[in-house]
């Protein structure tokens, strides 16, 4: 793992991706800092941090697009996959390398609040919380990008799809008002989720019978619940989406709130996508 990590980290700065990522990230955050803090002479750095989460949408795809796509395109995945390394080790090495580049960039931005603290008072807890949030959010976004990159040979496709996914996460919050909130739609939504989980189960264990049985069982349970307690399905879609929304949790951090549940959420979100990446690489061998 450590070998893949160091090679990957070096590769970021041998090509242009590392510099492009850092450059764009620092440029845009610099613009935010200038317009929000320097020109109006305001110490409210948290606003800038809020803007940074938007910058992610643009730059994370740059960071993650090459991780596996390039490897596959150059056929160097053959070297990695026929070496005694475990797939998990390879995936983690690459993931952590991308996170390390991201972390380094983030450390550069610490200069902004440092400057502010010289001339005014800043809220350390809010900014600290904001940085923890950004770090976790970044890790989650990079995990998504990593997964997408493992699906395709084309870096452009990987970047565009990652961008699309991150953008839809971003607008997820805005969508919530427009979604149906009645019981029936909640019930249908629950069934669809079970179906999706069942398909995933099937691709993992490749046993149609077991997957079908699991789907049938869960659908049965949901139907029973729906009959017994229909109130539980009111506004289910919105509640689920809210819970899943990466960004609404992030806003807690920028208010200086460090919720354990949110930290766990981000970390498990990242872990889930890293795991999916491992599965995707592993299952490609079977196709």
């Amino acid at each position, binding site marked *: 793992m450590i*070998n*893949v990590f160091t*090679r990957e980290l070096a*590769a970021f700065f*041998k*090509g242009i991706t590392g510099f492009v990522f850092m450059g764009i990230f620092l440029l845009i955050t610099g613009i935010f800092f200038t317009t929000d803090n320097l020109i109006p002479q305001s110490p409210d750095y948290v606003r800038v941090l809020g803007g940074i989460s938007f910058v992610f949408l643009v730059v994370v795809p740059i960071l993650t697009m090459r991780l596996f796509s390039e490897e596959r395109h*150059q*056929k*160097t*995945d*053959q*070297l*990695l*996959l*026929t*070496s*005694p*390394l*475990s797939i998990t080790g390879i995936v983690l090495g690459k993931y952590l390398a991308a996170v390390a580049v991201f972390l380094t960039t983030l450390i550069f931005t610490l200069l902004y609040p440092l400057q502010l603290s010289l001339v005014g008072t800043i809220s350390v807890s809010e900014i600290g919380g904001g940085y923890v949030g950004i770090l976790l959010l970044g890790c989650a976004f990079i995990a998504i990008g990593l997964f997408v990159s493992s699906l395709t040979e084309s870096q452009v496709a990987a970047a565009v799809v990652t961008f699309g996914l991150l953008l839809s996460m971003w607008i997820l919050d805005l969508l919530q008002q427009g979604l149906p909130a009645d019981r029936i739609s909640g019930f249908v939504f629950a069934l669809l989720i079970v179906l999706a989980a069942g398909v995933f189960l099937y691709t993992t264990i490749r046993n149609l019978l077991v997957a079908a049985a699991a789907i049938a069982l869960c659908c049965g349970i949901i139907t029973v619940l729906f009959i017994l307690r229909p109130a539980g399905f009111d506004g289910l879609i919105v509640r689920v989406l809210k819970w899943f929304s990466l960004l609404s949790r992030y806003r807690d951090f920028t208010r200086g709130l460090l919720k354990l549940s949110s930290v766990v959420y981000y970390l498990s979100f990242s872990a889930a996508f890293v795991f999916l990446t491992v599965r995707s690489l592993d299952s490609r*061998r*079977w*196709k």
Partner: protein
Amino acid sequence: MRLRNRGKSVDTGRNFRLPSQAAGTECRKEDHPLIEVQRLTKRYGKHTAIENLSFTVGKGEIVGFLGPNGAGKTTTMNIITGYISASEGSAVVAGYDILEHPREVKRAIGYLPEAPPLYPDMTVEEYLSFAARIKGVERGNRRGKLDSVVDRVRINDVRGRLIKNLSKGYRQRVGLAQALIADPEVLILDEPTIGLDPKQIVEIRNLMRDLGRERTVILSSHILPEVTAVCRRVLIINQGRIVAEDTIDNLSAGLSGPRRLNVRVAGGEHDVLAVCRALPAVKTVKCTGSLEAGTVELYIEAAEDRDIRKILFRSFAERDLPILMMRSADANLEDVFLRLTTEERREPNHD
């Protein structure tokens, strides 16, 4: 032992016979085969890339996979090295099953895929040291291993150069160096000479022959002379099946007797044919035309397994019809290969 998959070999014609079991007893009776592939099948959706492939490779053997493009050579190699998984069947390398103990198998194998897996942004030295590290070469040994491998494949002069700036020949050698770096017991090389110039091909072949002395080598090729030049045993694969499996010597042995001849004789067609027809040793004779003025081209088949060249010479000489040229019309290895791989798939003959 040798003909483990006799059931799947096709009837290859009378002048090319798969050898009897007796031929296979010369060595490695006691030692366990290093690579044992059993009933390997790989399907891509409806398409079957390889079907029921079985073979063994003993320790220290150098075996060639021969077959036209798309025959399933690369698929087989990718399965043995653990890059892809088989749909059915098993592959055991150095005593470990690839599915159950992938790490042990991968440690035992050095693999050079068809396209060498090189990182263009790394220098040769960085790349090889990365390869050494991920293959678990111990820290203390790395320097020495790297030096000896670089020496061996003769890339010393490009050590510090970026791989993307290297020529195809050098890249191929860097790929080979990568396969050798951890000193694996088994070396699997997929089309190692493809895209090289003739001088480089000779160099790589010599290198492979050297390597074959100390370790087990499987190499694939669609070029017959390459396999004959390097390997002692050949597996001919076509459409995902093994159509023949034998040593080079045996493969050629079945072909060497000149039972069929192409002959050019100076004289009239009528006279010449009359001479041949008078000979009891000649089964068939055909005139295939005339390529030089005043000569005839003949195709002659001997009645039994006997050499009729001397008889022909004397008979034609008696009638003052000089033989200008005489050569065997029997299939050489190339023809066998072509016939085996272009013939329609026959049903296995269970003999």
